[in-house]
């Protein structure tokens, strides 16, 4: 059914359609309307789940860690400082190899206080063992959330669905909301490698031998590599059922492109407009949208090592380059523009000018678009 939804409400509906059993969250702008909507659906009896109000994000993730450990499909959502406050638990969840899903509505980290989008918060999860996806719009937020449960539960790795503050979270768009039956067909009942059971005497997380612990990390690293295939397979299957195909990346006019822009998130839409304009002028430019930051689509990027590549970043690693600039730069040579930090608006005209300068060879190694 096509309807008009904000990105946050799209996530909320996806959580309902995924038959989540436990939701716990602490409010933070711009995440709050996700869990308000879920709380409302539960209160109205439209959604069969338990909503746990907590006093902090640390506890929000702790609660869903507990419920996921007990075998219940679980969800939380946060932003920025909330993510940082629960950071310890993020690692505990992933190192426990526990499937669960969290929406991260990307928001600038203070000070000064700022509620607008940049991707620095989400990027702090990179090393932790979470699968990290980034939605471009409300439809993708809904679709990725539904897929996230399947992917997370196939790999026993937690999954963070990122969406940009306000640009996606609070912007109402036409969204195709699938019906429950079709989602049920796509998403089976929860499965997980292990769960805690009162009748089964075993310990979770107790001190282990160093070598054994390192072996567990290697297993995780291998499964993260395996995730690439699973993500593409689940995205293909999703496409067959719902008509919208997903995968690690979205390739926009890249096949014959001499110049390729790599980026992630909501502003990819504006960048595509700029690509269209340059294409009309005969410039062979394309856009590679990273739908996933982890696992990192290294093999896809390697395919383009004979092209000129520009990475546009909405997060920065102090003392180095833009975060994705580092990531992509590890695979291929690239220029790096850092833009839109702290919610600074970047529209298609900025992208047009940026890409023109890129094509003319005017961009330095790292440029701040400011």
């Amino acid at each position, binding site marked *: 059914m096509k309807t008009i939804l904000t990105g946050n409400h799209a996530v909320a509906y996806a959580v309902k359609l995924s038959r989540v059993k436990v939701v716990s969250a602490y409010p933070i702008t711009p995440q709050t309307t996700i869990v308000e909507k879920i709380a409302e659906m539960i209160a109205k009896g439209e959604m069969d789940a338990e909503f746990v109000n907590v006093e902090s994000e*640390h506890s929000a993730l702790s609660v869903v860690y507990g*419920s996921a450990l007990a075998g219940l499909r679980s969800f939380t959502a946060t932003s920025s400082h909330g993510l940082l406050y629960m950071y310890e638990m993020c690692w505990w969840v992933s190192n426990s190899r526990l499937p669960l899903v969290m929406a991260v509505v990307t928001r600038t980290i203070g000070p000064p206080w700022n509620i607008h989008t940049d991707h620095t918060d989400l990027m702090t999860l990179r090393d932790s063992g979470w699968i990290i996806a980034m939605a471009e719009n409300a439809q993708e937020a809904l679709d990725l959330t539904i897929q996230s449960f399947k992917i997370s539960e196939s790999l026993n790795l937690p999954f963070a669905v990122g969406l940009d503050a306000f640009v996606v979270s609070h912007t109402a768009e036409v969204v195709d909301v699938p019906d429950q039956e079709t989602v049920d067909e796509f998403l089976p009942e929860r499965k997980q490698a292990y769960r805690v059971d009162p009748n089964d005497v075993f310990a979770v997380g107790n001190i282990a031998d160093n070598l054994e612990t390192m072996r567990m990390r290697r297993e995780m690293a291998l499964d993260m590599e395996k995730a690439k295939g699973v993500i593409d397979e689940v995205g293909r299957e999703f496409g067959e059922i719902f008509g919208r195909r997903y995968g690690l990346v979205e390739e926009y006019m890249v096949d014959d492109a001499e110049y390729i822009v790599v980026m992630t998130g909501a502003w990819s839409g504006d960048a595509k407009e700029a690509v269209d304009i340059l294409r009309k002028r005969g410039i062979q430019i394309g856009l590679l949208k990273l739908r996933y930051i982890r696992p990192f689509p290294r093999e896809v990027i390697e395919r383009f090592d004979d092209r000129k590549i520009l990475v546009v970043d909405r997060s920065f690693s102090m003392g180095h380059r833009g975060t994705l600039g580092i990531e992509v730069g590890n695979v291929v040579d690239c220029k790096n523009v850092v833009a839109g930090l702290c919610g600074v608006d970047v529209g298609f005209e900025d992208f047009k000018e940026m890409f023109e300068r890129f094509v003319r060879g005017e961009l330095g190694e790292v440029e701040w678009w400011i």
Partner: protein
Amino acid sequence: MDLRCVLLPGNPSCQGCPHAIGLKALSVLENPIVVVPAGCTTIIAGFNPKQSIDLPVVHVPFASAPAVACGLSKAYDNVVVWMGDGATDIGFSTLSGSAIRNDNILVVVSDNEAYMNTGIQMSGTTFWKAKTTTTPAGKREEKKDLALIMLMHRIPYVATASVGYMRDFVRKVKKASKIKGFKFIHLHSPCPPGWRFDSSKTVEVARMAVKSGAWILWEYDGSFRITGMSRMFRDKSKRIPLTEYLRVQGRFKGLTEEDVRTIEERIDEVWKLLDVLENTINKA
């Protein structure tokens, strides 16, 4: 008392460890899951793939335990948090939040009055003037009364207990397990290396705390009452001298007579307060 030994032989607890005594009480619970945040019990529970606690145990970060237990309680009854005063300090908002929600869990704080697992550092429940490695001249601040703070959360069950009086503690655990909602037991757990007394004297020191009136056994289940041995120590003349309890512990070495008098006055204040509670919160 029919207590199954849920803590298996060969576990790595110190000699005279109060947790090793207290943990036995969990054997009266039916199919419990035990949530353990970082602390001495993390070590006592043993190394993977073996474990010394003969129950399902979930090890979790310091400040998360009651919240993880809350999540588990969505699927199971009899979820127990076994934590120390350290996890209580760092995770106090977690504990308070869980109590406010009235999560269906039992929280036992086995309180040895300092951060013992990291090597005897001051905690919120460390006694005034007690020496720890971070208060080598003695703690300057008062101890917080955890159980009374939890009582003010209006949860269905709150109690204090002592490893010196296991019958009383076990009765309270049993009682708590039959109540739906948030249950809290504050267990007094004298620590031989931390308090500097001989490891053969854990139970004796725990009992001295009660007999001197310094630790008071009580419970609230809708009504508030002093329980067990503490009932007879309402009468101050029946108590042993406070100095007997303090002098047996190395951490109180160098207390002046005035210090002891001050401690005694503060203990008297607590008794007065509990007396008011017993006479006020009384459904009978």
